[in-house]
């Protein structure tokens, strides 16, 4: 299994309004996450299951001594699941949940590229946007004639980990 680390301090392009995104494929769509949040990219490995968690929480792994949870994005988005194979990839990201920083891994189909996205090229998402709940989507960007779905990784992960509420209890 290969492990590739992307440097968190990747060079920014000359234009101040552009940001860098790491993109990955999921069910034929290309998604992007802020590269500064990406800690590393791992191959898929055995996971320890955790009881009483939603199906998209696959379990936890040992990442150099830290216990890191792994989420399956296909399941999270309610997409059809596929078998994990040699190309299955785990992107380890750092997210802010409230005031705490968490390290979480997400399983995706494959990793694509790193793109510079100009602010001019990205627009807020329409209300209905493909298969993804738009609250997680920061923007839609057009790069090299492709559409990238730029994710708000904090919201996505934070929401996924949010405390389970008892039935009938009003959400916080």
């Amino acid at each position, binding site marked *: 299994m290969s492990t590739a680390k992307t440097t968190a301090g990747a060079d920014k392009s000359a234009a101040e309004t552009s940001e860098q995104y790491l993109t990955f494929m999921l069910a034929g769509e290309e998604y992007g996450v802020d590269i500064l949040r990406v800690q590393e990219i791992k191959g898929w490995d055995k996971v320890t299951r955790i009881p009483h968690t939603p199906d998209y929480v696959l379990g936890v792994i040992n990442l150099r*001594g830290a216990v890191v949870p792994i989420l399956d994005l296909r399941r999270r988005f309610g997409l059809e699941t596929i078998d994990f194979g040699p190309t299955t990839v785990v992107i380890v990201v750092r997210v802010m949940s409230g005031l705490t920083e968490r390290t979480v891994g997400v399983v995706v189909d494959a990793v694509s590229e790193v793109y510079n996205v100009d602010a001019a090229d990205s627009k807020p998402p329409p209300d209905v946007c493909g298969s993804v709940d738009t609250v997680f989507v920061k923007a839609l960007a057009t790069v090299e004639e492709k559409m990238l779905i730029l994710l708000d990784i904090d919201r996505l992960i934070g929401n996924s980990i949010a405390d389970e509420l008892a039935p*009938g209890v*009003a959400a916080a």
Partner: protein
Amino acid sequence: MTLDLEMAEIAKVFFQESREGLDVMESGLLSLGATADTENINTIFRAAHSIKGGSATFGFAEVADFTHGVETLLDQMRNGVRPVTPEAIQTLLQACDCLREMVAATEAEKPLDKDRIAALNADITHILGERPKQAPTPGAPGGAADAGAAQPAAAGSAAADQPCGWRIAFEPVIDLLRVRNEPTRMFAELNSLGAFTARADVSRLPPLDELDPESCYLSWNIEIAGQIPRARLDEVFDWVDSGCRLDIVPIGSSAPPAAEPLASATAPLPANLAVSADARTPPAEAQRGPASGTPVQKTAGESGSIRVATEKVDNIINLVGELLITQSMLSGFADGIDPDDLDRLRQGLSQLARNTRELQESVMQIRMLPISFAFNRFPRIVHDLSRKLGKKVELKLSGEGTELDKTVLEKISDPLVHLVRNALDHGLETPDRRLAAGKHDSGTLELAAFHEGGNIIIEVRDDGAGLNKAKILQKARERALIAPDQDLSDEQIDNLIFMPGFSTAEQVSDVSGRGVGMDVVRRNINDLGGHVQISSKEGVGSTIRIRLPLTLAILDGQLVRVGKEVYVISLLAIVETIQVARERVNTLAGRTEVFRLRDEYLPVVKLCDQFGVEPDSRNATDGLLVVVEADGKRAGVLVDDLLAQQQVVIKSLESNFKSVSGIAGATILGDGTVALIIDVPDFIREAVKRSGGALTAHAA
């Protein structure tokens, strides 16, 4: 006032000791309310006296002046000249608080609160200005304090009998000078009190070549004339009286004079305490003996250091020594290994393992402190709060010696304070209502701590009004914290108070009632890996039970296998592991299985079902039953296999994920995989819940 570097270092000790002295004063004053005994007042006086002396030495004039007033009042009390009234005690307690702030402000080089100082000074002067009594009055001065009954009868000589002089035989210990006491200073002070003559006895002086210049071979016979109260003389010799021979005999006597003159707050400080270039740490420190056996620590807030009992440290040093020996023995081997040495190698390795384990245990022990550090702020809090709320409370502490990790101790302090304040504010009733309810007018608040199965349990018990279940249920429904038709057990209703924003208090007092408290308490306790729950009976009282791990880091665990998954169960929770014969297993109501263990029936909890794992077999008779005990209940956990026992480092699930019921944390095994650590009490509770009550873990 800024001190030069060396003085600043020494001043640090003064500040620390002053804080400790103030603690002593405060606890002394609190128990003074109950019994005004001589020894107690003397202790308080000596503490104040040291603070005064020390602060004068460093030139902290305001602190010294203020303490002088306090000391004067205490002096009168210990001489039986002034009665110990609740008002005086209250003023002194406030003076303690003010002094604490002054010391803190001086240490931080911040300005002092002059208004507060002036106000308290006025209070003290007012008390001092009242006519002091000549002899103790038999009638109680009023109020709940029994101070009047137990006036110190003969603390020093009462003001009634004033001799016209004293004869003092002073034979100091040979190390007097080494501990930085200077007879010349004492004599200078005596000189200021009256006509002073001294004759030195040089009989013990050795020849010059045998003379040790730092030893004191002299003793003196002193005569001092004048009407000096005995207490004043005691004061001069205050710092040297232990170990030295000191005989003070009055010469003659005169008719009892008028009432002792009022000490004015501006009385000059004894000359010997002036700052001098040779000023050293107050000798009192040496006189109190080395601090080796007593770990002491600031209770307020978190401090970055601990004082540790030397024997704990010595123990570790020994163990490290043994570790080094074992390790060098092994490295000697590595050079020429041949198969015959394999045995010795194994022996060495197991010895190494033992040494490391013992060393680790010792190091963990260093961080353990008795819970009294958290408990000892409560007498004061209860005292103040009960006065403020107009309630009568008796505070009982037990298990103060129970030790727990320093970090856990620091973090449990504030939640405990909140729980105590809550109990006083909402739990305990006013004396009238208590009497009307047929109870004693004085309520009881108990704080108890004890070890149970690898955890520390802290209980806060009150015999107050208990929780009003109907009201809680109503408020919970009102605030949509539960579904309107949701049915809850009594215990569940009680524990609703831990939900955020929950408060049934009609008024929001500054003590409690804002509804922010209990959920923060529970969160803090959960963050420590602990649990808190409340059980209450209306009209009878409430008990809050906090369970905390002894240490946050390491666990002795038993690895178990269910299917392909490996879990860790704390060894402390395991009673025994058995293989159950078919005839000992019965099924209740077609759903739950129980098995007979000697003379009791215990429920079978299937790990595979609870955690949704595919096991080798679902039959209770095919696997092994791990009998665990938690919260006083027992159950048998069905696993496929027992693996090794090992020490595991606890890694929190919450740091990157969130807490999961039934799981205490995670650990990384030797092969690099993650294994989940089972939270036994939670696990059992969950199992009971999921079975819908059909499975009730029976009491052990």
